[in-house]
């Protein structure tokens, strides 16, 4: 309860400052709309269904891209985690690839696949795969050797050992990978859509900018932030915390 009051209080202060800057007239009205105007744009966008449609398209891209990123990332991560040979050969490049901001892939995606939705999905996949792979590799490394030894004394080896010990033991790190893959994919999605031909939230943002509708631009930025925070808090962080608790890594 106290937490909610603190958070709402903070929001009120920020909105107040915003209104203040607007009222003093630091920027021209057309580039810096008032909070009321942005609220209006938000209402309007949802009421006439434009934002809903854009959100639907964005989530479709995200779902496809993130699913593939999780799949590829897991396969690469397990490969690098299990094979020293593979890790020595390719492990370093993974960190290099991971450090490339997703927007850098956009020109390449457009040249390869045109202004299609597939180009957007391609960017999302690249955005999520490497961080997923790095975390899955860490997950495999983090399996306590002691548990593997114990399982071996019980006659568990090879593939059963992998599925009965190494996989469940790495799930907490896997969940961290999932949360980060989502966060990176969400950023990549916006980068990709911003330069695409729509539909999607990022495309709507650029469209609004082209028509100098800054109220809509800010409204969309708010939507992007809210979705990012809500999905993280409601889905991934919660999932991660529950798993850590269950695995005894967190004192309840």
């Amino acid at each position, binding site marked *: 309860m106290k937490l909610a009051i603190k958070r709402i209080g903070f929001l009120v202060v920020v909105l107040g400052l915003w209104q203040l800057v607007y009222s003093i007239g630091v920027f021209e009205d057309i580039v810096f709309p008032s909070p009321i105007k942005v609220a209006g744009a938000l209402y309007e966008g949802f009421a006439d269904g434009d934002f809903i449609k854009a959100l639907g398209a964005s989530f479709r891209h995200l779902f496809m891209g993130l699913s593939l990123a999780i799949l590829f990332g897991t396969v690469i991560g397990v490969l690098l985690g299990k094979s020293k040979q593979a890790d020595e050969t390719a492990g370093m490049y993974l960190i290099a690839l991971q450090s490339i901001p997703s927007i850098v892939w956009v020109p390449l995606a457009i040249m390869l696949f045109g202004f299609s939705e597939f180009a957007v999905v391609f960017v999302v996949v690249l955005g999520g795969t490497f961080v997923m792979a790095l975390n899955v590799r860490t997950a495999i490394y983090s399996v*306590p050797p*002691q548990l593997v*030894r*114990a399982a071996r*004394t*019980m*006659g*568990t080896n090879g593939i059963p050992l992998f599925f009965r010990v190494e996989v469940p033991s790495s799930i907490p790190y896997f969940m961290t990978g999932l949360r980060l893959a989502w966060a990176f994919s969400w950023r990549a999605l916006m980068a990709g859509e911003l330069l695409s031909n729509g539909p999607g939230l990022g495309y709507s943002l650029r469209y609004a900018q082209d028509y100098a509708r800054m109220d809509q631009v800010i409204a969309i930025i708010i939507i992007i932030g809210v979705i990012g925070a809500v999905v993280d808090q409601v889905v991934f962080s919660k999932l991660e915390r529950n798993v850590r608790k269950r*695995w*005894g890594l967190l004192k309840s």
Partner: protein
Amino acid sequence: MFLKMEEVGKTFNDKEEGSFEVFSEIDLNIEENQFVSLLGPSGCGKSTLLSMVAGLEDVTSGSIRLEGEEIKKAGPDRGMVFQQPSLFPWLNVKENVLFPLKGHGSKKEAEERADRFLQMVHLSRFKENYTHELSGGMQQRVAIARALAMDPKVLLMDEPFGALDEQTRHILHEELMKIWQETQKTILFVTHSIQEAIKLSDRVVVMGTRPGRIIADFSIDLPRPRKRDDERVIELERKVMDLLEGEINKVLREELHEASY
């Protein structure tokens, strides 16, 4: 002979530090149903030898045979209890005990076995709990139940009570004695505690260090339960202490010598 070690040697090969011989030519025969302790200072290779019997470490030279069959790799005929309980945190207590039973016999039989051994270690009430909800002593009892549930020919214990407090250790000593008498298992028990070895074992094999080797082999036929203030126990403790003192000093001298560089 039930468990036979012949001229067993172990050398670790390290790329950077070269090879290091832990011990060589260890000869040791263990009879069925006996409780045998391997006692020695750190670095004598007692845990390494136990891991070799478990099949977790390769045998560099010589051979280890269990009922005539040479040990090549780990297997469920040798149950192992480690110093750390090594339970699977994603499984509850009963599922942990069921782990080695999966795929052997029917599910119902497995469940009955698990229940029986959990009862033996007095943990029936905690079947559904996760392992991190249990104390260290309880976790170690789950590990013992898990090792026994697969009905191994020999139970290997690597300083199983070393990480527990004094009180808990005493309770577990008594429980282990009961379990041993009930199941008639052959137990090979590694410890660095002279008192623990004398309290529990039929036979204490004392190992020395640099190089690791067997320096003495005592049979103890005092009646159980053995009291700490029993004259014969004290006498034995003194005898073993005298034997080990030289070995411990050797380790200390070497460590101090290395530290002075």
